């Protein structure tokens, strides 16, 4: 039974690893080491609860929720260091073609409070609705809307209206 469970877990985790890692990179504003740590921690939690996870309606969404909450739990513990710094995060591949967009966006995300960043990632990367985002974060939909408006306002200040110019043509 344990063997089967391990295989099922491995199959699911292998299929989701890439996406969860990218989500974690955005949540951590480009801290890829922390992102790896968060993904492993997420998989660890999924492994422990695998019976429940595998029966969930949408295991992938479940995994995303665990990742987001793991990230927020991490940030809460680090709340005294929540303030963004002026230094850019440690980014691999900073020399490649995506670097300007990546650096600029990550630096802007790093300036958002953790919960606002989570809202932004869930809404615009995961494409979740306000209600779904509220479920993941265990807050009201009204709180999500408030955070979203505030975060977008701040990002616009930081990135300027022409954020698309950083993006691919």
């Amino acid at each position: 039974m344990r063997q089967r469970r391990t295989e099922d877990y491995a199959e699911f985790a292998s299929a989701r690893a890439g996406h969860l890692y990218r989500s974690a990179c955005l949540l951590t504003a480009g801290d890829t080491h922390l992102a790896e740590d968060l993904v492993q921690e997420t998989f660890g939690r999924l492994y422990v609860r695998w019976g429940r996870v595998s029966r969930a309606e949408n295991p992938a969404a479940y995994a995303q929720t665990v990742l987001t909450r793991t990230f927020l739990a991490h940030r809460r513990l680090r709340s005294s260091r929540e303030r963004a710094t002026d230094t850019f995060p440690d980014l691999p591949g900073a020399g490649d073609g995506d670097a300007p967009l990546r650096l600029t966006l990550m630096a802007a995300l790093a300036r958002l409070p953790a919960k606002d960043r989570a809202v932004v990632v869930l809404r615009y990367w995961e494409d979740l609705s306000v209600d779904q985002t509220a479920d993941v974060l265990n807050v009201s939909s009204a709180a999500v809307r408030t955070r979203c408006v505030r975060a977008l306002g701040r990002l616009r200040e930081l990135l300027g209206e022409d954020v698309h110019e950083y993006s691919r043509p």
Partner: protein
Amino acid sequence: MPENQHTDLFEDRFATALRDTGHSFRTDDPAALVTGGRVRGRRAQLLRRTAVLGGAAGVALVGVGGALLLPGGTHDDPRRTSAAAGPARTASPSASASPAAVSFTGDDILRSLKELLPKGTYSEEAAEGTGSMMPPHAHVVFDDGKGAAAIGLSLNRVEPGSEQARQVTTCPDKAFVDHDGCTSTRLPDGSRLMLFRGYEYPDRRVDTKRWTAELVTPKGQHVSLSEWNAPAEKDAPVSRPQPPLSEAQMKKVVTAGVWRRVVDAMPASPKPSVTSEVPPQGVPAGSAGDTLVSLLPDGLTVTDRGGEGDYAFLVVDDGQGGSLVQINVQPGMSDVAGQLFGDAEKLPDGRLVTTRKSPGEKGAEGVVMWTADTLRPDGLRVVVSAFNTPAQHQDATRDAPALTLTQLREIALSSKWDAGA
């Protein structure tokens, strides 16, 4: 350009940029993430078997303790650590005033545990000693002839006199954690001992029993013993009516002197896991929830609760069925006063209050949500809502929420929130 259009254009551009950026991250080694996760999961399972505070059920261990006694580690001291086949001497840092720089292997822990248990057979033995990254722990499936049962032991250090030290030996309130019995007592040496007879699943969807003994000494040595009436804590059929060890036998195991020496041999304060679910210092566990409970009118029973930090929910019952109540306490919200409190009532002291009745937010049938929303002049927003259902995604189970708008307003305006802000 109207503000909305302005925002929408930026929103679209930002979303595109975010997606492009997200896709530019590539992990070198996805298999390592999968394997790393499994290793962490297995470790956590081992720990969970042995730690009563592990997992989500670790919330809300609140209540009051009593007092009972024990001879402080005397005649039944199982074994000197330096005895035959004893622990290896190492140069590893010894945390506190332990007599010698000793370490304990997983086998040492298992051997000591077995010496303290009644006669029986063992299987599925697993343990780690003081040389591991994890706190020392052991797990066995024990059979005294009446059915195989999982037993777990874990050893750790807590800050003496801390909230954590108090909580682990304080009986949970039955409203939050269903159980068949619990005593919390003080031993002659100043240690606190909690003996808890409860269930693996607090909602009793499976009747697997979990009995635990938690001992915290005045020096902060923490010994935790758990036993089940099944060969595994979850996903295994119940094998016997009760777990194998009586309360007296559990007490004998956790009070054995050897465990204190093992704790003393642990390396100095390992850093807390970054993903620990313990809230940071200064934010008491369930603080919003505790305050909310204290503000409830008489006649309500709390049947469930959860949340963390500045968010909490309760399910309260006034005799007509469960009613979900949730609260958000959000500092620094002055900048949204215009959006949220445009036509709100302003109290003489400057606080803004608005109440509303609206449909539920999750689309369940017939659900209503009654809300009192308040904003202090210092930017602290307290918003509390009550529903006519125990869970937002469930259809309505009663005509109205268990709290009136007036009661919600009183709760949100309580000065108790200011103290915690």
